[in-house]
Each structure stands twice: as structure tokens, then as C-alpha cells.
């Protein structure tokens, strides 16, 4: 099978997403896990905290990239406006999720606590999907679309770690 030249950057991007995900899991061994009974719980909270932090960082990088692409004329004001609204939506959803994790920290979430977290997290994933479908897909400039989509893929990879934490 011969790879088309245009596939190379996409494959590179996907490989880096995999690297990003593996690093995220690998780094979860740090921090303070003191008691034996709380080790799993601490690990779960730590993974959720790290992933929500990764989503926040991904949003930050997307804001900077969006500004740069707009300055380069690769994005219209209308497109930038739409992206700004959708990024704000993801940011707000992640903010609510982080606040909830902070409030629950140190105590094992019961069934309703986990359901509450899952519901809040559904807001984050829904906002990420909306950002992809309504903000990035309609972008007219292929270069701008490709770059933004790759950064979103990184944030989405982090979000999948939270999803694993919330599984019953």
C-alpha cells in the first residue's frame, strides 16, 4: 500500500496524539498516594484532574492558534466569532467540571456523585463535538481547518481519560 503525500501530516498528527495519550497515562504515577485503601480513588481523581487540565491547556492553545490564523487571513471574522463562542462553551463546561472534582476530592464518589460527574462531563464532550462540527468543519481554509482539528484531537484524547474514570 502506498501512502499519498498528503496523508503524511495526518499520520504524523495521529502518531503524536497516541504519544500524548500514552504520556498522559504514564505520568499518572506521580503525586501523593499515601494510604493503601485510597490509592485507586486517588489515581482516579488524579487522572480526571490531569485530563481536565489537559483540556484547559488544549483550549488555550486553540485560542492562540485561532488568533494567529485570523491575523494571517486564513479565517474570516464570522468564522472566528463562531469559534470564539464554541471555545467559550467548552471552557465553561470544563470549568464547572473542575469545580465539581475539587468539591468531591478526597471522598469516594457514590453512585449519585458519579452520575453527577458523568452528566457534567457529558457537557464537556458535547461542547467539544459542537466545536468540531459547527466550528471547525465549516472552516473554508483547509490549512486552518487541519491545524485546528489536530489540536482538538489532542484535547479529545485527554477527554477520553475522564470518560474511563466515570465508567461504572
Amino acid at each position, binding site marked *: 500500500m502506498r501512502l499519498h503525500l498528503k496523508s503524511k501530516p495526518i499520520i504524523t498528527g495521529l502518531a*503524536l496524539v497516541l504519544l500524548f495519550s500514552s504520556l498522559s497515562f504514564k505520568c499518572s504515577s506521580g503525586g501523593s498516594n499515601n494510604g493503601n485503601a485510597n490509592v485507586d480513588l486517588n489515581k482516579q481523581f488524579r487522572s480526571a484532574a490531569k485530563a481536565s487540565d489537559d483540556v*484547559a*491547556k488544549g483550549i488555550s492553545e486553540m485560542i492562540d492558534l485561532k488568533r*494567529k490564523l485570523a491575523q494571517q487571513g486564513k479565517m474570516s471574522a464570522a468564522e*472566528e466569532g463562531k469559534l470564539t463562542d464554541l471555545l467559550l462553551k467548552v*471552557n465553561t463546561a470544563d470549568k464547572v467540571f473542575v469545580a465539581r472534582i475539587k468539591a468531591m476530592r478526597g471522598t469516594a464518589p457514590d453512585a449519585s456523585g458519579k452520575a453527577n460527574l458523568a452528566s457534567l462531563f457529558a457537557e464537556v464532550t458535547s461542547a467539544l463535538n459542537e466545536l468540531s462540527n459547527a466550528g471547525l468543519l465549516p472552516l473554508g481554509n483547509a490549512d486552518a481547518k487541519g491545524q485546528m482539528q489536530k489540536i482538538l484531537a489532542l484535547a479529545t484524547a485527554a477527554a477520553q481519560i475522564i470518560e474511563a474514570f466515570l465508567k461504572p
Partner: protein
Amino acid sequence: MDKLLELLTQLTPLVTSFVPKAESEAELLAIIARMTKFIHDQGGMTTDEILDQADTTLDDNEKKLMADKIRLAGGAP
């Protein structure tokens, strides 16, 4: 690992000066290098510190996005 990421971040602007068309890919690689380093650095932080960092980043993001909304609406530059 840290040195490799630092090197990658420093090399990307240099690549674009020699290969102009590589600018967008180099920009992307620089972002990925920054994010990979960011994740690597989380390993040395406590969960509380990570959550505080997330809070700070999200607050900064909100400020930047509100500034963009004002700019796009024709307000402040």
C-alpha cells in the same frame, strides 16, 4: 525527555526559516511539543496543584475569549 522537547520547540522556528511552506506544520509541531511537555510536567505535581493550574488556565482562557468577543464586535482593539 525535557531536553528533547526543549530542542524540538527551539528547532521549529529555524525549520520555517529554511522551508517556508513548512510553517503551518512547524507551528503545529511546536504546539504538540508544548502540550507534551505540559503533560510530562504534571507528573511532578500534586493533584491539588494540577486542579489549581486547570483553574488558572480556564480563567485566563475566559479572559482571552471575552477580549476576542469584544474585538470581533468592533469594540476595543
